[in-house]
């Protein structure tokens, strides 16, 4: 499989070097251990917001470091959780005296490594809270699974909680807000093609030309169901229906509709999905009051899309609209 890389071993290192070189006014990249912080970190008197996870989901998380969003991001190897020393060092680097919130996607490795990092930071006297995002309705949440995965709602939580931290909220308030966003967000994704992990060099799974995978995760892990390819409108309905039924979203609700590319699906197709999703929501009496469309939480070059719905109230809407200035998201500045 062709890749625009120099060697699989250097993918993450060279990629974050490039991010740092491209946006020196916004971020600083620290190596060994690897983490990306706001150029003005630590911001005194502000709760620090740290996230992280495996690489391969760009722009998440490194592209979301900056004013109004994350204070630090810890990139792991491709699709592999970062290590506790990275989160620990990043936590120290952004602690402006009001404590640090870890936003963690619900994957076994991420949760365990962030727990170890929080233990290390607390042992040194730092105030650390962690909120686990688990919004993927494709996964059955039961005692017998690792629980729902953290997907699209993560991006929305980072933006909204980042805005609240910028306004001076406390660590407890930031954690409570993050729980609220997680509780009101739901996602589901699908794949048209597999992704190719650089050090593996071939597709993670075989998906025939006329088939698709519904309920896919963001690491090429297979989904709920494999089936014959359908039209964009049918696929949109298949993604949106379980999301709507899960919360449930109801007539009269205000929502943020987030249509995300898995990396390989172009914008022209995303807006076809968006159009249908908007139509379905409108027909159900659900008001789409904010929209977000693009590749923001990706799975390398996988073709496919995910839909995230976040139920909005005045607080969340205002925080979403607040200025943000990061490599991948910028408005209001």
């Amino acid at each position, binding site marked *: 499989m062709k890749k625009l890389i120099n060697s699989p071993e250097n993918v993450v290192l060279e990629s974050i070097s490039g991010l740092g070189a491209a946006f020196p006014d916004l971020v600083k990249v620290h190596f060994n*251990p690897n983490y990306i912080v706001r150029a003005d970190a630590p911001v005194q008197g502000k709760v620090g917001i740290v996230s992280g996870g495996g690489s391969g989901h760009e722009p998440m998380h490194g592209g979301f470091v900056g004013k109004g969003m994350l204070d630090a991001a810890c990139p792991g190897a491709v699709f592999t959780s970062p*290590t506790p020393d990275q989160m620990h060092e990043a936590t120290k680097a952004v602690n402006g005296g009001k404590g640090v919130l870890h936003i963690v996607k619900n994957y076994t490795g991420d949760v365990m490594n962030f727990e170890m990092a929080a233990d290390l930071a607390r042992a040194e006297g730092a105030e650390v809270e962690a909120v686990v995002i688990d919004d993927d309705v494709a996964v059955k949440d039961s005692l017998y*699974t690792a629980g729902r995965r953290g997907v699209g709602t993560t991006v929305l939580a980072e933006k909204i909680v980042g805005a609240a931290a910028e306004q001076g909220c406390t660590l407890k308030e930031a954690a409570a807000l993050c729980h609220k966003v997680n509780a009101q967000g739901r996602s589901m994704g699908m794949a048209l093609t597999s992704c190719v992990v650089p050090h593996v060099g071939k597709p*993670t799974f075989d998906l025939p030309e006329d088939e698709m995978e519904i309920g896919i995760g963001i690491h090429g*892990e297979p989904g709920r169901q494999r089936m014959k390819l359908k039209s964009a409108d049918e696929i949109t309905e298949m993604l949106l229906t379980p999301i709507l039924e899960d919360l449930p979203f109801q007539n009269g609700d205000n929502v943020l509709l987030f249509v995300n590319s898995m990396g390989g699906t172009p914008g022209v197709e995303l807006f076809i999905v968006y159009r249908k999703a908007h139509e379905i929501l409108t027909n159900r009496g659900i008001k789409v009051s904010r929209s977000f469309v693009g590749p923001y939480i990706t799975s390398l070059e996988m073709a496919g899309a995910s839909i995230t719905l976040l139920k909005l109230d005045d607080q969340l809407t205002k925080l979403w609209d607040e200025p943000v200035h990061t490599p991948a998201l910028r408005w209001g500045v």
Partner: protein
Amino acid sequence: MTTITADQIIAWIERYSIRIAEQKEFLTKLDSDIGDADHGANMHRGFQAVLVKKAELQGKDIGALLKIVAMTLISTVGGAAGALYGTFFLQASSVTTGKTELTPGEFLLLLEKGLAGIVLRGKAAIGDKTMVDALHPAVKACRRAIGANEPLDQALAQAVAAAEAGLQSTIPLMARRGRASYLGERSANHQDPGATSTFLLFQCAAETLTTNH
């Protein structure tokens, strides 16, 4: 009575690093069937980093050298495997501090602490289709054999057999922990990658801890 020396522990770690390198593709293949295709690469990266520190391990007591192994794995492997194997060796180091050799009973304690640490960190039980399915029966076999004063080589041979049986038992299971659990029924009929790397750890122990180096 047979004892296990610090040099033998180093030989165990070194043999395991080489075995992981040999089995890297196989572990990754198992993980791509039910996970995210990184177990082989991650374990390889971690144990290669350990190999680089071999000179640093030499001359240290067993607790100190196992702590270096643990911290190296914690900072290089990532994923669940880094936290879990790192925890195993960190707990193992906590009961071997200052010791330059281990009696079979002390080695059993090392395994018991390692197992307890993994269970606490990963919250997995037998039958969840994880490394615990190989680790728990292997430790249990050692507990029985060492408790009955059987020779160490026989205890370890039984541990390897128990780990292998545990590994085989993961094949029909539906995963209930870790990334494979997202697959539900589709995770059945696959061998668990974590249980496989744990089996290899005992296989290497049996090859190195009862012979002189």
